[in-house]
């Protein structure tokens, strides 16, 4: 499956991802410094105290000098300190928030693949029955609804209508350390994130399965006397997944970016929540850190999806 060529390919991709991450953080660095206002401005510092603080963080130097310092620190994995929560180093914060977002995202991805694939396969096998129509209709509703509508609706149902049962277990306290005790706490936001993508995967899988089931090799498999379940899973599904993986890349991106909205709605202290807060606060270093984290996440996810091709389709080699 994985050859030496694949290994070289992975290394090449990792180098490219690093360059892309560097490019993104540089762009963001330049962009955020062009925004009116700054982190200290909002703190009612006046006169020399303001100047001193600016000097302390090196913000009074010309932009190109600041940029070079920033690049130098980046190479050591140091993203600097927060300007709002003074003295707090950013790298650990971003890493922690990234793990939180990745955890929610991963569960959303499991929803996407698991729910989407099984819906698609069942709909294809029961083509033109009430079950197919039910699942297909659900899919249309799923990908027609933005994730924030689903998120709000879920909160309404589980947080307001069913409060007696759930006791608000999926709200997160401010200052929550970001470690999930149980899957129970993240399945709602993950569902809100994953359901639209799951719907797309379901429709793709259904169409793809229907096509594959018409193929000659399915007839061969039947002529061999294989059991129907073996034919469906081993022969049909594996082939049907090849086009589905194509959309998995963009869908993973949608889950990562969708996290910005959904994390804010559920109050999850992940990268998405920090994304919004840090920009509003003009917390330069944090903004750059968050974007850097996002760029890395996107790059690595895409690499992961591309490697999935190799696992599923032996005709593809890198």
């Amino acid at each position, binding site marked *: 499956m994985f050859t030496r060529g694949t290994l070289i390919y992975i290394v090449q991709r990792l180098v490219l991802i690093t360059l892309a991450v560097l490019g993104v953080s540089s762009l963001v660095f330049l962009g955020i410094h062009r925004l009116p206002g700054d982190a200290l401005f909002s703190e009612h510092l006046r006169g020399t105290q303001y100047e001193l603080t600016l000097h302390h963080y090196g913000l009074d130097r010309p932009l190109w000098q600041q940029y070079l310092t920033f690049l130098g620190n980046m190479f050591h994995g140091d993203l600097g300190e927060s300007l709002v929560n003074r003295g707090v180093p950013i790298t650990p914060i971003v890493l922690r928030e990234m793990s939180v977002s990745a955890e929610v995202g991963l569960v959303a991805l499991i929803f996407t693949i698991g729910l989407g694939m099984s819906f698609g396969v069942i709909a294809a096998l029961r083509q033109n029955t009430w079950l197919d129509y039910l699942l297909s209709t659900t899919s249309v509703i799923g990908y027609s609804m933005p994730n924030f509508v689903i998120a709000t609706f879920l909160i309404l149902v589980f947080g307001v209508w069913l409060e007696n049962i759930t006791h608000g277990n999926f709200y997160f306290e401010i200052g929550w350390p970001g470690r999930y005790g149980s899957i129970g706490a993240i399945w709602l936001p993950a569902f809100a994130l994953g359901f639209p993508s799951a719907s797309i995967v379901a429709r793709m899988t259904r169409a793809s399965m229907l096509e594959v089931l018409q193929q000659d*090799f399915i*007839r061969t498999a039947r002529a061999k006397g294989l059991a129907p379940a073996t034919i469906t899973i081993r022969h049909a599904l594996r082939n049907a997944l090849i086009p589905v993986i194509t959309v998995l890349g963009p869908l993973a991106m949608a889950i990562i970016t969708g996290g910005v909205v959904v994390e804010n709605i559920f109050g999850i202290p992940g990268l998405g929540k920090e994304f919004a807060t840090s920009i509003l606060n003009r917390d330069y270093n944090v903004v750059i850190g968050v974007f850097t984290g996002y760029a890395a996440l996107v790059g690595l996810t895409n690499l992961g999806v591309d490697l999935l091709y190799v696992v599923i389709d032996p005709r593809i080699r890198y």
Partner: protein
Amino acid sequence: MATPILQVKDLQTQFTTHDGVVRAVDGVSFDLYPGESLGIVGESGSGKSVTALSLLRLVPNPGRIVGGQVLFRNDDLLQLSDEEMREIRGRDIAMIFQDPQSSLNPVLRTGFQIAEAMLAHQRSTRSQALRRAVELLRRVRIPAAESRAKDYPHQLSGGMRQRAMIAMGLANAPAIVVADEPTTALDVTVQAQILELLADLNHELGAAVVMITHNMGVVAGLCTRVLVMYAGQIVEQGPVEQIFEDPQHPYTWSLLKSIPRVDAVRHERLRSIEGIAPDLLRPPRGCRFHPRCPFRVEKCFSDDPHLIEVKPDQRAACWVTMDRARAEMGADDLLDIRPGSASGVQAGRLVE
């Protein structure tokens, strides 16, 4: 001869389409004897492939077997449950398909696809089955069988893929092998090798072979008996040599005339069969071949001929037959074999 291993009686397979019912196989009956090699020939759309698929109940949607019997070892295959039928497939009756490119699963290793056929019917471990798959690949003369077994189908050549298909068909040493145009997608040289291989396996293993083809040459090289199909029906059947030498149905006669022969008189023109195969949604009344037949008589327009014994072991469904066509219409000296040319019936007349 011994008792037949497979008896097909009045098989009817239909496809229900938006435009109406297509009777792809319409009342086909034949016997298959143990170890023999039976050819089924016909043009595209004559129903030969659907007949083959019907034997294993693998007719694709919207096709339905609506009547008849397929008797195998005293069981009517058409009456078995799906599970019982599944056990027959691949174990007792195996099928080799045309176009091995699309008939093999692209994402599974060749050896595994062969082993799978064994694992479906025998109690053995995966590694045992894989080892036997390598043996089978060796048996169908694939060089470096061990490493080829680990290859995916796209890494094999067309001929090797078809050999792998044959190995798959032989995996459970079936009593009957149905080969549906196994040489169609291959080069001529490879075709010959594959046919030779099938003939050898037929002799060595004693499996009865049903050979579906549109190629008379394939029949001549491999089969002992032949069924000629036209528009969903058998029009002639008998021993291969006899049919080639003395065809009695005008369709068989024209079919043989349309094949280029090395030993033919030079400058003799090849005859194509005029017209096109009938639309099975609205098959012609009477004999289905009459719109293309040079020897038709008035009876052919209205009455459906049945298979009758015309020579020892040879049966044809025709009101005229070639003996009469020769005697009364000078068939062999005929230069113009357009529809109705030798008959007393003018083209166009009587046809609705």
